[in-house]
């Protein structure tokens, strides 16, 4: 009997701050030596009761709240919220606003992926790479700042459109940033993606089979890494995704490496979508005025709207009883599935040194779990 097997079982509390996840999230793990026997997630550190808060506030006031449900990728929240109201109240959105929204969603996705792959690579000890991606993500933050006035929380999409049109010369600067990020992809591959050490560390870790993925309700890049080409943007196109060309990269391995590769490939697709938008965006108004928001009743009804966020399928179910605040808003984030159920399953049986890698490769967002 080797020494390591003689180590007794022990429990470990990991979190709420640790390198495995972008936010506060913790685990109670049972281990035997380096081997994780079981992991129980302990969520709630970022619980601010968003869903309940929304019921107490005017429809307009919630646009300042929803973006906080996912910090690295806030725009799908705004988009879902606005579209849910639009669907219930039958509000038309000007064509240009739809294109701008798509642009905002793609920029947000890019920023989130840069954050995500940087984070994953960093969990293997290669922090230089995450410094790069986060510095490059900052360029996108600057675009957001220019367009919306805010860097992280954009509070930009309103029911009926968006709050402001492009500032002068914005298109040019978007293209410059896209060119820049594209030029960096080679460096990314050299340093991390094609780095033999990283590949060795990430391959075969946290494997989800195609069957498991479907059974567990995995969506987004994590599902596509298991060989399923599912994407809300293609399956149920919203805004102007049916008017732009893009592909859905997939992998079949279903491991941590495959998930990051999918994200890395999607960066190229997003850059292409952004360029198409800048090329094709029509002129026109960007907002169809809604009634005075202080005295605004959204007619009774309900709506289920979904977007493809960088985390996966992201949906809002909104019910209005005809009053001045939503009767109920349910947030269906992909992170609850990935960050709780999938993660607990994957951690059991893996090794402690891979835990944070598995977590980050799933790219779950704790506030979205807690909401």
């Amino acid at each position, binding site marked *: 009997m080797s020494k390591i097997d003689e180590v007794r079982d022990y429990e470990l509390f990991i979190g709420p701050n640790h390198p495995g996840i972008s936010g506060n999230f913790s685990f109670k793990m049972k281990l035997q030596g380096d081997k994780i026997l079981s992991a129980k997630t302990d969520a709630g550190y970022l619980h601010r009761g968003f869903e309940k808060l929304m019921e107490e*506030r005017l429809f*307009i006031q919630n646009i300042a*709240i929803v973006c906080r449900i996912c910090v690295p990728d806030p725009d799908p929240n705004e988009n879902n919220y606005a579209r849910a109201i639009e669907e219930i109240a039958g509000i038309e959105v000007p064509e240009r606003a739809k294109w701008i929204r798509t642009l905002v969603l793609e920029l947000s996705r890019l920023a989130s992926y840069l954050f995500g792959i940087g984070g994953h690579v960093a969990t293997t000890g290669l922090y230089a790479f995450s410094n790069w991606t986060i510095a490059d993500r900052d360029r996108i933050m600057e675009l957001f700042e220019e367009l919306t006035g805010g860097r992280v929380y954009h509070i930009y999409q309103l029911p009926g459109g968006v709050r402001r049109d492009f500032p002068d010369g914005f298109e040019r600067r978007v293209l410059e940033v896209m060119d820049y990020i594209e030029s960096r992809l080679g460096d990314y591959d050299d340093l991390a993606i094609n780095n*033999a050490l990283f590949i060795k560390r990430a391959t075969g870790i946290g494997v989800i089979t195609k069957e498991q993925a479907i059974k567990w309700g995995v969506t987004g890049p994590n599902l596509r890494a298991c060989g399923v080409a599912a994407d809300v943007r293609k399956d149920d196109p919203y805004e102007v995704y049916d008017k732009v060309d893009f592909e859905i990269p997939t*992998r079949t391995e279903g491991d941590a490496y495959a998930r990051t590769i999918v994200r890395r490939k999607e960066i190229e697709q997003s850059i292409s979508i952004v360029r198409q938008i800048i090329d094709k965006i029509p002129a026109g108004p960007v*907002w169809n005025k809604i*009634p005075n928001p202080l005295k605004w009743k959204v007619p009774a009804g309900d709506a289920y709207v979904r977007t493809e966020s960088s985390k996966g399928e992201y949906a809002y179910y909104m019910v209005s009883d005809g009053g001045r605040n939503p009767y109920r808003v349910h947030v269906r984030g992909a992170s609850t599935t990935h960050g709780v159920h999938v993660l607990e399953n994957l951690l059991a049986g893996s090794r402690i040194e891979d835990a944070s890698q598995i977590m980050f490769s799933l790219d779950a967002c704790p506030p979205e779990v807690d909401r």
Partner: protein
Amino acid sequence: MSENNKGSILKPFRALKFIGEKPVTIRTPFENRPTAPRYRGFHVNDQEKCIGCGTCAEICDNDAIRMIEIPGLEPEVGSSNLRPAIDYGRCCWCALCVDVCTTNSLNMTQEYTHVSEDLNTFFMFPDTEGIHKTDFPLGYQASDDSNFLDLERVEMEELSPEERGDSFIEIVKGYSKEQAIAEASRCVACGLCTDTCPAHMNIPEYIEAIWDDNLSEAGRQIYKTNPLPEVCGRVCTHKCETACSIGQRGEPIAIRWLKRYAMDAIPAEQYGDVNNFRVVKPLGKSVAIVGSGPAGLSAAYYLRLMGYDITIFEKYPEPGGMMRYGIPEYRLPYDALDKDINYIEEVGVEIKCNTTIGKDIPFEDLHRNFDSVLIATGFHVGRSTRVPGTDHKDVFQSIDLLSKITRGEEIQVDEKIVVIGGGNVAMDIARSLARKQKVKYGKVNIIVTSLETRDIMPADDEEIEEATEEGCVFYPGRGPVEIVIEDGKIKGLKTNRCLSVFDEQHRFSPKFDENDIKLLEGTMIVESIGQGPDMSYLDTYTDKIEMDGRRFKVNEFYQTSIEWLFAAGDIIKGPDVINGIAVGHKAALGIDKMLENKKDLFYNTIFDVLDKSLKFEEGCRKSSSKFAGKFSPVVNNMITDLTVKSKDLEERIKKLIQNENVLIHLDKKLKRPQEAGYFERCIAEEALADTTSEKDFLKNMERKTRVAFGLYHDLEKLTKNKELEFLFGYLKAQKKKQLEKVEKLLQK
């Protein structure tokens, strides 16, 4: 990146090429990174432009904006003495406040750094220079394209000049339900209108009720301060609309038309049900009111509700005063007026028409037979220009003609008429005569001339516009010299140019250009330059009443120097219906005070009691929240807690008093003197002094909370009604808890 990529060991070393690059994010020494021009940084607020409407605080989803009173700033029409202060511990920089600002005075800058160990410095009062007085460039700014407010009014349909030119049918068609709801939804409920309205009507409240399609509530809110809403819904001078914050950049809310819609939509037979008001109990005391104009009717209504027996004496065949005999039917149909007056009669006010005091009944008799007398006889005697020729038989007073038209008497209508005067009465007579001319001659030939030029004519703009549409021709800025008479017939009015109407002290002192003479042709002249009172009915009392210039000397409750005699309406404070209503209501309170011999006016109806108690709570809340940003988190939390509780209380009381039984019960209880005493004692707490230290603040809070505790304790004691007992008991318990918390903190 092929499927079986083994990767490279050497390629990662290519990253070494960046080794000499300047870092992207670190800058030493520290420097502020310049932001994008649209950056949402700290706020700036143009204090001059800002009207303190509080809409920013209303939309703020974090309660980060508080409206604070500015010392030395006087509230004006359409502007309060409050200005927003921002708690940056709460602000989330969403800029909803910027996009909803009614004046565009609130904007954001590109400034984003504030470092301080003193938490109080995060509670800031934005002005034009920014928080650090460093003149940062503007960031996120208000934009007309994405402003949240609805600046355009729902258009009111009116009869065209052709349709209305020859009839006295009401011009304004009124809003439909959909139109009214749409118009009501534009309101931001800032309450500047309430401050400006002479009667301080609960305008935001009834607009909200209209928006909610809750007409009963709208009616209830309206009747709290105005018993002539059908009239005011049509002919009010709507000073509220001048104050409306939406009017800063757009068209003000059509407050008058909304009131009209609400009252038109409630059938007359439902008025009693709509109004929770009941005559509390007969007091066995009586009040005589002379004149059934707005002031007299308003006083009668509110006195009646308090339990007095009211008799109104009216000289004309029908009640209404100027509303009936001065305002033409096309502006105020008699049906609408009757609807209001009938309800006032329904609550038990007796109106004796065709009874002239001083002729049919001597004034002395009123004093003998009634406990108190209110005179509200108005201005019914037209003033003359007294230029040569005014004694001609074809020179008329507008007020006489208008009254004759109402009474259906035949009046002289010539083919060419000159009207002298630039006020609303001049417009009324000009437009009435235009209609008569149209019927008689098929065309209109009316000249209206006034001393005032078009820009300073006292008549409403819409009146002047509509008169022009109906064919009246204006010669403003001209003074009458003489009426030219040839062969016993009037040829016209000779006028000269008026250079200025008022002198430097704004006294009436017109100056004329004697060389600029013009003859305005017409065979009939109507003078409409104002009216005066006829007080001859007062008989010997004329000498006994103290005068203040040309008017009676009255105190704040419109009581004259004779204790039992009150005066209201145009003879005290004109010139319109709403002022009459306001003065009448106040005089009613004064009469009640005098007759009940109350020390002070604490309440008159149950609503006053509840309003007072709510205001007390509101006061606690305001004075607490005013300092909230400055203190430690523990105290802050407690204040927030208080605020929530107060809001809750308001809702509960509002809901409860909609129950009629509860109302009657509380009314009965509170009308008993000893129990009223409890109440008075409880709220006789002076306002919180401004505090700067936390300790002082807590002490003040303790005192206030203690008083509130006492208030609920006493209210609980005197209510044996289940719901009320529960409510006040609950509130008492809450207050006790709060008190304990404060005391605990104080001990620390």
